[in-house]
């Protein structure tokens, strides 16, 4: 399977970077084709521009500056997001990738007169989030898991009709033991070998 791994953490010596490496390792071990998009390393600008907003229903070809990102997303049969959960959801750099790259004629279509957008990412059959939460599972439940809903429901609806969503999360990392961290790394790698 062709897997696009989207990574959004500013530090390359972070636990999140280790998660990315183990996820990629698992995918490669299972003979998947992997493209790693490191948003910080590629200096991705997450702020959708006024022009992009004005042309948000214009054809994708009118945004040549995003063509490479569009192509990478269209290529993917699996999208694996690896990020730390901040304020309940994906960091700004990942949110901005969604804002700018999950665009008209890539992630959705809006035919004239249609009441709502139609999904277009039928190439994506697996949607995976690998994330860490500082707070406990209980606190996140209280917050209503906005990040999990944004990806697992809102984005999931744009993918293939039978696309599977997988949520791999380590809660309470602020107080996790080294053993728990190790265990989660192994868990992520194994989950990726069985994508």
């Amino acid at each position, binding site marked *: 399977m062709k897997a696009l791994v989207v990574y959004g*953490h*500013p*530090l390359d010596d*972070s636990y999140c970077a280790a998660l990315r490496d183990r996820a990629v390792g698992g995918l490669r071990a299972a003979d998947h084709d992997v493209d790693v998009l490191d948003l*910080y390393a590629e200096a991705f600008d*997450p*702020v*959708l*521009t*006024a022009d*992009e*907003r*004005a042309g948000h229903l214009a054809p994708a070809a009118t945004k040549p500056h995003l063509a490479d990102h569009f192509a990478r997303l269209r290529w993917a049969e699996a999208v694996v997001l690896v990020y730390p959960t*901040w*304020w*309940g*959801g*994906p*960091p*700004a*750099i990942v*949110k*901005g990738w*969604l*804002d700018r790259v*999950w665009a008209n004629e890539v992630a959705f279509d809006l035919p004239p007169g249609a*009441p*709502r*957008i139609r999904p277009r990412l039928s190439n994506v059959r697996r949607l995976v989030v690998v994330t860490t939460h*500082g*707070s406990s599972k209980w*606190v996140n439940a*209280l*917050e*209503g*898991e*906005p*990040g999990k*809903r*944004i990806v697992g*429901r*809102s*984005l999931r*609806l744009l993918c293939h009709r039978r696309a599977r969503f997988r949520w791999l999360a380590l809660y309470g990392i*602020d*107080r*996790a*033991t080294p053993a728990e961290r190790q265990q989660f790394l192994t868990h992520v790698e194994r989950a990726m070998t069985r994508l």
Partner: protein
Amino acid sequence: MRCLVVHANPTPDGYGAALRDAAVAGLTRGGHEVRVVDLYAEGFRAAMTAEERRRYHEPDPIVDPQVREHAGHVRWAEAIVFVYPTWWASLPAVLKGWLERVMVNGVAFRHVPAKGGHTVKPHLDHLRRIVGITTYGSGRWFSFLVADGGRRTLLRALYITAPRRTQRIWLGLYGIEARSPAERQAFLQRVDDRLARL
């Protein structure tokens, strides 16, 4: 009340700007003190930097003078009013980044030692209102059932760092593409009226 309006919209003269103006007009009419930060106009950086992340757990994690200025606005505010368009069921990246970079240790919460590491304690003790004003492409029930990530982020995740008595107010215009000019106008009026009696 001292009110901070946080505005995030790439279009300087669009409906989002009209919503911000309606909010400011209502607040002013209600006798409130208002400060506005316009994240797009200020060119606010969305992504937390590597240095900011490295210092995240320090007593004073703020590096950028612009972030320090915004943190001052937050400390001043008794009400924070967010005005933004909902994209992919949540906040635009620049607003999400504002939370991540401004609402840090010593501003929104405090890191305190706990068994096995640390935990966070609420620190927005001065906050009496959290207000969200947003437009949705999708309908009310669809938004509510599918995700409503923006509302959950502001009225739940952010609220946890405020006192329990803090009031949460949500003003949403759903299915905006299908709304008539009269409906859009009515929503502006609703925003103005509601904020005048904050």
